[in-house]
């Protein structure tokens, strides 16, 4: 059992030069049978396991991860958290996640460094501004804090921005969500893993899944690198590899996988105390607590599983950031990487049942899954435990591509996907 982290445990361990800290979670060998198996040990998968154990009493479960915890998109995103989505269905699920974020460090007894520093979404033209107004009003009707700022108010909130944008990206206004901000992405995975492990969940790393056994339209178990595991319920939470797992189970998804890129600069002293996003030019920037500028770029225009991405994509982002923030022009970029995101035709996730009985899927978060991590795990745990979706994720079914009930968040979600 994990000991609680506190100021006292910190002081106690300081005496022994921090050499006696317990491991945060066990590394057990897989059992032959579990009540449910979650495939994918990223933030969403680990959150699912935690809520299954905590809220639904399912403790004989496992999370299998082919690499290491949070080594995929959880550790590759730009850590931005916000809930200012346009449509009611999205607003409900992202705001549910936001409320969970607000109590998460306490709930998990793990500091996820959630910092509600405010998220600005810039408008560069009168039509951008009208979209901002429409979205802010929709947010307010859904009880989400959202404000409209004019250019002068943008300058007051974030003086580092050059409102002229080099003539190319003039800033005419913005929306602001003050409750939005950032969180430490690795800590989210580690916090959920530690809390789930304490409730008895087996977390099995370095265990890729080779096959899914389906008999008469019903799942029986999974074939892994560490042997066969029998289970009546499988939750697939593997982001960019969703189509690969779906093919193993014998059903199709409307998902397309492509690399989304991000990069960080050399660390500097505190200079930017909010998150600035520009949907029109697909550029995000914030500053991490280590001092690096964290910059998010766009996706490639064609499918691919190489975690690199095309060079011209971050180039466009950087050129826009240099115009908006002339003070950053001489910064040197330290690292650049790509994560494989699973994009859906309507830029909304798929969370629900599949054509195979006992297999549930949580995918299609595309370029914006990190912010939803707690809410996504929460509704998916309900779906897996109760064999039916929670009202919050019922609209996000795979079946919506047949019924036509699409939740089109392209552009409307405050960024261009």
């Amino acid at each position, binding site marked *: 059992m994990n000991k609680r982290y506190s100021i006292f445990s910190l002081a106690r361990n300081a005496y022994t030069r921090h050499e006696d800290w317990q491991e945060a979670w066990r590394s057990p060998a897989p059992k032959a049978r579990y009540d449910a198996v979650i495939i994918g040990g990223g933030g969403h998968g680990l959150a699912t396991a935690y809520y299954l154990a905590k809220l639904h009493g399912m403790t004989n479960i496992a999370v299998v991860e082919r690499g290491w915890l949070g080594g995929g998109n959880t550790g590759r995103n730009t850590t931005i958290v916000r809930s200012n989505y346009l449509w009611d269905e999205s607003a409900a699920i992202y705001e549910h996640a936001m409320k969970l974020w607000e109590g998460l460090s306490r709930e998990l007894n793990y500091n996820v460094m959630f910092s509600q520093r405010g998220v600005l979404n810039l408008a560069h033209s009168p039509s951008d501004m009208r979209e901002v107004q429409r979205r802010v009003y929709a947010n307010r009707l859904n009880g989400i804090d959202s404000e409209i700022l004019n250019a002068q108010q943008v300058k007051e909130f974030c003086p580092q921005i050059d409102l002229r944008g080099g003539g190319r990206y003039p800033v005419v206004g913005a929306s602001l969500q003050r409750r939005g901000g950032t969180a430490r992405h690795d800590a989210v995975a580690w916090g959920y893993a530690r809390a789930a492990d304490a409730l008895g969940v087996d977390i099995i790393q370095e265990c890729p899944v080779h096959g899914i056994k389906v008999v008469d339209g019903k799942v029986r178990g999974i074939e892994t690198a560490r042997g066969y595991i029998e289970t009546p319920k499988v939750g697939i939470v593997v982001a960019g590899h969703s189509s690969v797992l779906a093919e193993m189970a014998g059903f199709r998804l409307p*998902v397309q996988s492509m690399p989304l890129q991000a990069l960080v600069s050399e660390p500097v002293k505190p200079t930017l105390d909010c998150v600035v996003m520009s949907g029109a030019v697909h550029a995000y920037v914030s500053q991490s607590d280590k001092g690096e500028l964290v910059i998010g770029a766009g996706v490639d*225009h064609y499918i691919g599983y190489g975690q690199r991405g095309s060079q011209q994509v971050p180039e466009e982002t950087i050129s826009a950031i240099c115009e908006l923030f002339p003070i950053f022009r001489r910064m040197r970029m330290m690292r650049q990487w790509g994560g494989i995101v699973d994009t859906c035709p309507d830029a909304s996730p798929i969370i629900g049942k599949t054509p195979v009985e006992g297999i549930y899927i949580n995918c299609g978060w595309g370029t914006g899954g990190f912010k939803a991590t707690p809410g996504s795990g929460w509704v998916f745990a309900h779906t897996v435990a109760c064999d039916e979706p929670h009202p919050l994720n019922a609209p996000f079914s795979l079946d919506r*591509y047949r019924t036509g009930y699409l939740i089109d968040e392209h552009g409307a979600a405050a960024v261009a996907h």
Partner: protein
Amino acid sequence: MLLIPCPHCGPRAEIEFSYGGEAHIARPEEPDELTDQEWSDYVFMRRNPKGVVLERWVHAHGCRRWFNAARDTVTYEILAIYPMGQNPPELPEPRYL
């Protein structure tokens, strides 16, 4: 960035091209006969292989002509270029985990 061998103009940088998505998806011949599920498959469902993908490209900033390509989505190697409307040549079948 990909170097794409346009069959008409020779090898050119990726930024000269536009992507046309999965190749060989035929429009249904009897649209009135299709169920909602069949329409959904035609409109939304796509192969998204970790391996060889057959896809369409157009040399938008060059000769403006369409062609098919077979590409490995892990190594990004372009394995074959062939004309629209033709079947793909024999291709390797790499297995990635």
